[in-house]
């Protein structure tokens, strides 16, 4: 994934996460996902024109089942509310995608806002990921209740986040506002103490 070069773009956890590495048998693996394109999408899901406009522009149909993610290739649409979604797309893609969406949505009661920098993403995986998250996460992540393709918003410790499971390993991506990222990182590493933690380039 190409990173924006000049001028220097930084993530909230740049220089904060410590060096990459750690025990190979660590219970969790943590890393920051550097720069994703993110668009907040609002619109009426009952409006077929809206759905097809979005599907046309994004290539992904906006999910209408609460708590689900629809993804095609490297684009995903996360359900956030009955008329609200988050589109996640590779960095650099968001500007063009937004332009395309705005064009497609013209005349509808719908809109997009670029929120690529309004969140950063922390990835947590490993056999003990669920155990560690449960220390501060009130929502059930048991495979019977949650899994890949699902997204949920709640409070993780003392922050509000969007959490999405990306695979069965399990791996989760946590979208957190940048100003809270250091706190959340500290919290996660602290909660991992018991099971061991490896830092990964995400």
């Amino acid at each position: 994934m190409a990173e924006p070069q000049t001028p220097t773009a930084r993530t909230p956890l740049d220089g904060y996460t410590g060096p990459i590495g750690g025990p190979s048998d660590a219970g969790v693996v943590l890393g920051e996902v550097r720069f994703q394109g993110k668009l907040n999408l609002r619109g009426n899901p009952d409006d077929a024109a809206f759905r097809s406009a979005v599907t046309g522009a994004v290539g992904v149909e906006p999910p209408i089942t609460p708590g689900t993610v629809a993804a095609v290739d490297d684009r995903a649409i996360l359900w956030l509310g009955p008329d609200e979604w988050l589109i996640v797309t590779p960095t650099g893609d968001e500007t063009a995608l937004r332009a395309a969406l705005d064009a497609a949505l013209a005349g509808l009661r719908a809109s997009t806002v670029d929120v690529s920098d309004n969140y950063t993403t922390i990835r947590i995986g490993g056999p003990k990921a669920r155990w560690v998250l449960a220390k501060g996460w009130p929502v059930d992540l048991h495979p019977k209740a949650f899994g890949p393709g699902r997204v949920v918003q709640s409070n993780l410790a003392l922050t509000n986040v969007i959490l999405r499971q990306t695979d069965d390993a399990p791996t989760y991506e946590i979208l957190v506002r940048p100003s809270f990222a250091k706190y959340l990182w500290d919290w996660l590493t602290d909660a991992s103490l018991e099971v061991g933690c490896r830092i990964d380039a995400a």
Partner: protein
Amino acid sequence: MANQSNRLAAGGRVDRRRPLVFRFDGRRLQGYAGDTLASALLANDVHLVGRSFKYHRPRGILGLGSEEPNALIQLGRGNRTEPNLRATQIELFDGLDAHSQNRWPCLRFDVGAVNSAFHRLFPAGFYYKTFMWPASLWSTYEEVIRHAAGLGRAPEGPDPDRYERMHAHCDVLIAGGGPAGLAAALAAGRSGARVILADEQAEFGGSLLGDDDVTIGGTPAVDWVAEVVAELESMPEVTLLRRATVNGYYDHNYLTIAERVTDHLGVGLPTVPRQRLWKVRAGRVVLATGAIERPLVFRDNDRPGVMLSTAVRGYAVRYGVLAGRRPLIVTGNDDGYRTAFALADRQARVAGIVDLRTDPIGPLVAEAKNRGIEVLAGHSVTATHGGRRIEAAEIAPMTADGSGLAGSTRTLECDVIAMAGGFNPTVHLFSQSRGKLRWDGERAAFLPGTSHEAEVSVGGCAGTSSVTQAIKDGIKAGLDQVRALGHTARQPAAPAVEEHGQGETRPLWLLPSTQPVGRKGKHFVDFQNDVTAADLMLATREGYRSIEHVKRYTTTGMGTDQGKTSNVNALAIVGQSLGVDVPAVGTTTFRAPYTPTTIGAYGGRDVGHLFAPTRTTAMDPWHRANGAKFEHVGDWMRAWYYPKAGETFRQAVDREVTVARNGVALLDASTLGKIDIRGGDAAEFLNRVYTNAWAKLGTGRCRYGFMLKEDGMVMDDGVTTRLADDHFHMTTTTGGAARVMNWLEEYLQTEWPEMDVRLTSVTEQWAVASICGPKCRELLGRLCSDIDLGNDAFPFMAMRDGTVAEIPARVFRISFTGELSFEINVPTRYGLALWEALMTAGADLGITPYGTEAMHVLRAEKGFIIVGQDTDGSVTPLDLGMDWIVSKSKPDFIGKRGLARPDLHKPDRKQLVGLLTEDPTFVLPEGGHVVETVKPKPPMAMLGHVTSSYYSPSAGRSIAMALVKGGHARKGQTLYVPLEGRTIPVTVAGTVFFDPEGSRRDG
């Protein structure tokens, strides 16, 4: 080292290959792995373990587990010491260091025991009746009372250990792992459901661990336990929690479990929590918490060695410890006989079985006779003898109704008394869940009645007294609960159980004695709080007739055991005293936690650097690297000022202000709230939420707005910009960001859902650097070539898109300082890059970063208010003299009607004015109050207070703003700010102290 003189040669679940050394009050003693401190002390024939709370009477171990009221121990030392632990729950570890409590100088000779001599002056509630004269001496009395009270000592310093919390979800949570709970877990677990089974003890098995006369499937019950536990352990969806007390039952099947993770190891581990508080949301709950045996209330029933019958038996069977060689059994049911036989089988010489029942019959009674144990039917214990240990009991036959004596007393020597008063089902959790109890006269116990939650009680806690039944009911409950949740489950076969029945129980709440209660000796009901039957009777006599009054007046049931052994006895005695039956007395309220739980476990890891999030901006690394001092604004850390070497606070702020007025200065304004507003009705929406008019604002133009609450009071302010016809960018105060966002959403969703408006919080999408000062246009020009920065092309209160330092930016020409100023918004990832570029490009212009303090001074010089500082939720725009921002022509906006209320137009309202001190160097303290007439001393009538006050380098004098009653009409008046030690005369002025013509904002 003592030699475990009471340890039996064999038997019990302790590991004799692992001897452990421990200390009690400095004495080195030995026990085995698997012991509790209590069993190890008894093994060493130590019965005296503490002194009672009020009378300092010698006390021993009463029970076997969490019900223990007496044996409270101070464990460990220094920062790791813990007071009030029950010896019966402390698992022995090598090097354990325990101390008795509530005694001085030592346990055997306790000075406090003089209280015992004056005990007659200390009936229940005595302190309400005395220590009143002379009034001035109360604080002295209180000091003495406080030091005499309290049990153990707090740790000396910060706790070195970790505590964690853990959320969990399950289909079925089972509290208690005795036969009932194990059976339920098995039945539920086999369906594949998610099951949590928690027991407060180190091992599962419950009462079966302490009984050796029960077989299940033909083998000892403990073998069945081991099999079941092994099967449960093999089930992936079953979580077994040992040393885990289900301690709270909250709404909607939310329960907490306090797990003691490392306590039994005796050492804290750096990475592992010492304790963990589980917070479980359960689909269904099975309560299988068993029953707690009742002590009997007879004269001087508190001597060390007087114990619960199941405890005496449990020490023998489970720990291989004979608490005494000459036990006397006092029983109201068959269970006491089982204890007698268990002890007799272990070489004890049973002194006799005092059976409260007049005519006990059944196989156990017959067996006692066969064994040659004397059964004293229909007898009472009328007195006990002994000091630090029970030595003998006096017994006498009772009248048929048990209210008096029917014969002469006789003395039986004994070194232990085992009391079997019947069982109280452990209904604590059931009650916490708001289930309704019902009194069962036959069992003489409160049983679970109507459930409030999706829950069922089984086994001992439901009043079952047989293992057979407990297992059957457990299986049924396990199945029912998982089936109710839609799981398919097959019924496991109930194993065949051989056991003794419990026979009939005679509930005799207060054993008769040779003298009326209260005259001689003490009949203890609540051992820990030294509450006697006489105290309970006194309370009812004095009019404290509600059981809640009795509890509070006598403190019965209010100790650290919360009356686990005493409450039902107390209710019954109160009932007798009032002449009503037990259900008419009712119970007191059961509350969490079931057993005391560390404060640390509830707090978890929300301590130290994780106590609260600290929010930082993209530029924060620069501020840190460059020596900024910070201030907390809400959750944010904001740069407050940037001192240079040797500078004071004031010097630094003066310098920053001066540069902002004369050169170019730079502020990190990223924390301002930002809301993206889209939709065809966006302008109309702003019209409704702001006090001024928005419809005509041109694209690319900005406007300052006031938001009021419906009551007309100022709520927030900020600048909002029209980006397109249907698109606005709103800013809010830093502290108000979340509140405003929620407020606007609420109106949209609930009042005006028809409006075409969509809000998105973009506070953190944008990092904001605000540059100000006459040279700031020059600076911006160096970094930005695609915006014409000239006054005409880019006027005040306008916005332009462009590129600054090669970064895509939104630039706003707005000013909170009165100077020429640009607010540069860039995506957060570039915030630091922008800041660095500005600092580099402005170096030769003398660019200076300024912090929030200089920002405050700069705005105050111009009379700009800060919501929350110059307002406090009771201030209207009119009070602020800002009538101009309140539209007269708009038919409605939020706050318009509120603002029209009569009290908001009174001339004597507090209004914002400027204050000038006579001495221009004197800076009034913010919060100082303004008076019209100074009195020699308070009280004096206040007119209001100073809201903002600074030294203004630009005005060359101190400046202040204040909210003053009728202030707008007082311009020119001299008022006073009386401070401690001196009074400052001030002149009322306008609120603009610098550049009143506003000539500087265009540069």
